């Protein structure tokens, strides 16, 4: 695949749950090697978009092409080149980390021995070596997150969907992941990164897509967004574009309720 090749494209994608419209005509073209910061307020439709592209949701309208293939065709092969970290750390946690990883590796078509060896090395890098054969249910949030990240990378995918991948990780592990993402992108992998932590999105993404009420309302590099909106940080731009400006007065009211009422005895 040559540099600049199209990895995925969404054309006029619409999604309804009953009468509620979640996605309202999303258009998006993504090229190889991009890190896309996919941001938006709660309920904007970020996770839904990702789930559609992964084939978790099928009854959408519009066209979704990944690696040039229309995913509605029903052939699951395109998923072999995708890695996914879901927002909630949901996994079969009665399995041990090793059992889970070798199973997911096999699901993606790896040989079990190969998957196990690779998983072991990756777990050791992530300081999970000593709990490799423990049930995941006994893991902390951060450890579960590490298992999910490893499971998304085990088959060396070309396209990554990371939904809030840093949640629960300590500062050191976060640095590792951030550096890893930069290097993966440099090697031509495409990363679709959803998060609510604007500072990180600002630093790692080379393109930012803002989704509000099921539609893309801003799309471009951080610098481009800055020029257009004359605001300092991505966080400020986010507030401005989503029309949220009364945070100070809200906080004020909140504090006054905390301090009012029944006095200390």
């Amino acid at each position, binding site marked *: 695949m040559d540099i600049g090749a199209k990895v995925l494209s969404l054309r006029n994608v619409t999604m309804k749950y009953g009468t509620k419209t979640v996605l309202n005509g999303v258009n998006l073209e993504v090229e190889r090697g991009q890190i896309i910061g996919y941001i938006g307020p709660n309920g904007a439709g970020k996770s839904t978009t990702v789930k559609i592209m*992964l*084939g*978790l949701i099928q009854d959408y309208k519009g066209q979704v092409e990944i690696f040039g293939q229309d995913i509605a065709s029903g052939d*699951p*092969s*395109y*998923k*072999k080149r*995708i890695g*996914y970290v*879901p927002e*909630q750390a*949901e*996994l*079969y*946690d*009665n*399995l*041990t980390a*090793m*059992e889970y990883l070798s*199973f*997911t590796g*096999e*699901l*993606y*078509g790896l040989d*079990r021995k190969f998957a196990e060896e690779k998983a072991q090395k990756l777990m050791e890098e992530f300081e999970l070596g*000593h*709990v*490799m*054969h*423990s*049930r995941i*249910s*006994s*893991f*902390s949030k951060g*450890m579960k997150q590490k298992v999910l990240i490893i499971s998304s990378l085990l088959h060396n995918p070309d396209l990554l969907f990371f939904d809030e991948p840093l949640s629960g990780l300590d500062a050191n592990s976060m640095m590792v992941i951030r550096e890893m993402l930069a290097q993966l992108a440099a090697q031509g992998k495409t990363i679709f990164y959803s998060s609510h932590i604007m500072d990180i999105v600002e630093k790692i993404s080379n393109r930012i897509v803002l989704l509000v009420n099921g539609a893309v309302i801003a799309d471009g590099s951080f610098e481009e967004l800055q020029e257009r909106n004359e605001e300092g940080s991505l966080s400020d731009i986010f507030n401005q574009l989503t029309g949220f400006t009364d945070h100070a007065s809200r906080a004020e009211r909140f504090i006054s309720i905390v301090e009012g009422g029944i006095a200390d005895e």
Partner: protein
Amino acid sequence: MNEFRTLAFLSKFKRLFTRAGIDYQAMETILRMKLTMDGRRTPTIFNAQKKKEGNQFLKSLWIYGLYGLMIIPFMLFGEGPYIFQMSIAFGITMFILTTTMVSDFSSVLLDVRDKTVLQTKPVSSRTINTAKIIHILIYMFFITGAFIAIPLVVGLFSNGVLFTFVFFAALVLTMLFIVVFTSLMYFAVLRFFDGERLKDIINYVQIILSVGVIIGYQIVIRAFNFADLELTYAFSWWHVFLPPMWFGAAFELLLNQDFSNVMILLSVLALLVPIISIFIYIQLMPSFERNMDKLMSESKSRKRSGWLMDFWGKVCCRNREERMFFRFASLMMKQERNFKLKVYPSLGFAFIFPFIFIFTELQMRTLADISTGSMFLLIYFGNMMIPTIVYMFQFSDNHKGSWLFKASPIQQPAAAYSGTLKAFLVKLYMPVFLLLSIAFIAIFSWRILPDLFAVLLGAVLQTLLTYKWINAGSFPFTSSFEFAQSEGSAKMVIISLAAGIFVVAHLIANAVTGGIYIYIILLLILIFMGWRAILPVIGHPAPH
């Protein structure tokens, strides 16, 4: 939050608690919160029902009342020495109370949320611990009450006031002993093992409870027949380690005025051990709390070699995808506790029921007499468990993890259930069937070998048909257990009875000379064609 009559009753003892240095107000608040939460929990004994409104616990008490009837016979066997009847009665009581305590109240004792929610608040740890114990005692009081109410009244009429009084006092001690003993047992387990191991132990106790109650009931019914035996009591040193004997001895001592040294020793144990263990418990409470941290931390690594699983996977499965699900399903069956809790009791019944019927028959005929007939068909009772278990493969506590199946490039979704059903047959069905077969060959001789083979093939076909008929969705372990009973129960009854069709077919086959071999060939053809039609897995899918 509700007002609880129990708390109103407890408040009568407010002064007592306050004098012991306990913040009664705080304790009452904790208890009210706990009781409210309990109203939203379902007891194990009721695991076959879906969630309903109201305190399921109070509604489940009648079951304990029913179990209580089991001990009435032992109180009525009049004249003999009390130590026999009452030891058995207390043995049953202790079994029920301990298993209930472990299965339903472990979560109370081991609630790790207590640490973050309660210990961060300005409440003394003495108050918190007392609240915990009182909380459990409230329930044990209800359970013991329900369990013993009818026997107590029967005892009052048949054995007099003094008997009732001793009985009541012994019960209170038993209750205290069990609560404290269970806690100490947990303490010991947590001291040496990790939290996961403790959860496994609790899981197995829950399974034993489900099986034990049914089997115990069968045994007690049969106990009527050998109950008239005249026995004289002879002491052996190991009786000292049987708590039910202590209480039995107390009856002997107080009611039959048997003042022998042995009776005095055992009775003193009945009185002292519960009291001493409470003191030990209070002493150990702080270090127990510390060990509770293990429940929250990661468990030790234990690597299991899976060569046996790999071997069977290679033998049974047609391709890599199917083998993968074979492995996955094997691991889930072995490691998901809730699945085990719902499935393993059925396995136990499958194993036990054929024997129970043989034993019933033994009371009328001799073993030699039985072994010549067609009684070996009782082994079909072992196949009755198949529908319940196959149905359960749809469910998992971790059903949310099933995004994985959709997000990954699975070429042949049919391989998922195909592998799972094969794993069930190899991992769960076969061990039970083999044990049953060994026992049956011992009873009925080698002549039944072809019949056993037909039974096995029948099980395979029944597994496939059950799946076809009741399982929804293309992947196993993808729905919540909460949906497990809402649908499919009527179908389930019908399909369980379908085992009868196999029995009838088998009987017909046996009516003709050599018919069993035709039946076996017929079954083989049906399995071969049925499996291909229902779960088509191609030998070699497109190479990766």
